[in-house]
């Protein structure tokens, strides 16, 4: 539905030239909760502003249902934005804020009144219509900003880190709320965040961005379980990186040789040949600590960190690499080892992911 094709945005010229977006292509489907995830300065907000019309790309095209979006000024694009600071109009009441877009579209009065009521109910703000925006809490302002952007029934809703100003509890409940709103309204959401957990819990698909380009696009589970490259693996969740040598590579399967000399099957989603030296990513919760003799790799337990729900075992492997194993704290679990013990680490075939270099 939204097709972003080879979009680049450069600021400055000559040596000071900075590519905020570098050849970005992505398509977002109807009724999708699509997340742009990345650290600050990665270009995710710039991309959102290109879609909204506040930034003109240096190159590339953006179309919606086949229409060229770039030819339209912001106020003619059928997209609405929820701004990071909400940008509620301070001189208007809650009701007037929500009605603003509808008034600008020239909708009849009765329709505006009905839609505003409907939106107030949708975001659970009934009875607050005549408040000033300064008289409501941050969470409520957030809801008003959402209602205001949803009221004109845009085809696409753009959300620029809308939850970042809320406290932890409120953020959690708004995550669920946002997902509910998206499902109920059937509107395509393009959501910008730097919070990987937010992205994983809400999105249908995630595009991980870094330094102006998209590094990987996929559903949350795929991004988490099968990161394509070191940046993605590192940015999302915790990861152990192991230097490995590819023994055989066939389709999405590879046999890799670990530093310990042992071999294990791993996933592959890019071109590698036998003999390549590369990196294997293993999630801490996918690995287990075992007696030294049963280990795929062996080392010394250097630290035990207790996290309530689970315990992190920090193992200094014999080849000098620090490996973290996350073990859930079941009540019946016997203490495996103590600090300083020799210990083995293992993980099942197929859970390790060979990274693109």
């Amino acid at each position, binding site marked *: 539905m939204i097709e972003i094709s080879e979009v680049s945005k450069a600021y400055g010229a000559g040596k000071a030239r900075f590519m905020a977006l570098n050849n970005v292509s992505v398509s977002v489907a109807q009724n999708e909760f699509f997340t742009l995830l990345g650290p600050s300065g990665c270009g995710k907000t710039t991309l959102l502003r290109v879609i*909204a*019309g*506040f930034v003109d790309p240096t190159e590339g095209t953006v179309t919606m249902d086949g229409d060229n979006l770039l030819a339209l*000024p*912001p*106020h*003619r694009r059928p*997209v*609405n*934005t929820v*701004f990071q*600071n909400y*940008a509620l*109009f*301070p*001189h208007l009441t809650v009701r007037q804020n929500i009605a*603003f*877009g509808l008034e*600008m*579209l020239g909708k009849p009065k009765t329709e505006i009144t009905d839609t505003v009521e409907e939106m107030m109910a949708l975001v659970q703000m009934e009875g607050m219509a005549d408040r000033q925006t*300064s008289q409501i809490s941050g969470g409520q302002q957030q809801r008003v900003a959402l209602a*205001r*952007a949803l009221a*004109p029934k845009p085809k696409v809703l753009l959300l620029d880190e809308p939850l970042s100003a809320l406290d932890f509890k409120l953020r959690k409940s708004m995550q669920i709320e946002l997902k509910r709103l998206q499902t109920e309204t059937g509107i395509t959401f393009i959501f910008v965040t730097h919070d990987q957990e937010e992205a994983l819990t809400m999105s249908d698909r995630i595009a991980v961005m870094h330094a102006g380009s998209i590094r990987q696009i996929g559903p949350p589970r795929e991004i988490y379980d099968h990161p394509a490259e070191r940046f993605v693996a590192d940015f999302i969740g915790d990861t152990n990186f192991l230097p490995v040598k590819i023994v055989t590579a066939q389709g999405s399967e590879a046999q890799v040789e670990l530093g310990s000399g042992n071999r294990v099957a791993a996933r592959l989603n890019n071109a590698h040949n036998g003999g390549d030296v590369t990196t294997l990513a293993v999630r801490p919760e996918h690995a287990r600590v075992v007696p030294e003799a049963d280990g795929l790799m062996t080392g010394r337990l250097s630290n035990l960190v207790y996290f309530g729900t689970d315990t992190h075992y920090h193992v200094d492997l014999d080849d000098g690499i620090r490996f973290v194993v996350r073990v859930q704290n079941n009540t019946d679990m016997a203490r495996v080892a103590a600090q300083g013990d020799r210990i083995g680490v293992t993980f099942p075939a197929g859970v390790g992911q060979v990274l693109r270099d």
Partner: protein
Amino acid sequence: MASDTGFDVKRQYGFSTIAVICFVSLYLPVILLVVYSFNAGSSVAIWEGFSLQWYRSAWANDQVQDATIRSLVIAFWAALISTSVAVLAALATTRVRRFRGYSAVFAAINQPLMVPEIVTAVALLIFFAGIKVQTGYTGLGYLILAHSAFCIPFAYLPIRARLQGMDLTLEQAAADLYASSFQVFRRITLPQLWPGILAGAMLAFVISLDDVVITEFVKSAGQDTLPTYMLGQLRRVVTPEVNAISTVLLALSVTMVIAFFFVTRIRK
């Protein structure tokens, strides 16, 4: 703040002495002026008892009435015109991408603050004289135009400050919600700009009301404003009537400045 660094300017030697000298030299003459406006005698230096006679005589003086009305009319139009121009100038210098020659434009707008007033006055005198000869028009238009011109920077500065302090994402949010550029201005920018506009207009009004130099040069015969009338009076005989008029002007200015203060404090 100051106590954090152990430095407090109030504790420096001579601080209070300098402060007192400053306040006395600023306010003592004004206080004396106000006091002697209530003098019963006809001297501005010898106190002869309390009386409102000079206010009565000023009120009854046709020339004073005439000059007051003229001053107010000129100040009204000058404030209106200069504020309108200032709004456009402020928008053009804050709501555009920074362009080549921005500083030059900024300097040009604020030119009346930098060029000596007497130069402007002479220039306007010569310029308007030419037009008068060509058109034969000798009305208040010249004074209104001249006042409008030098009031522009005074109206411009508070409006620009307000525009710069405004959250730009509000205007983007409005555009995002289908408002055209004009609707954004009308519905979002203007309502928030009002305090700045009011402040600018009041400042322009007071500045116009107060002007002597340019008015003295530009006015035609019989076009005295209150300040030029007073100047004319002082050349002859000084009575507390001038004090009375000055006191009224002072009261008006103070009221405006206080209003200006409250208007600019309106929550952004």
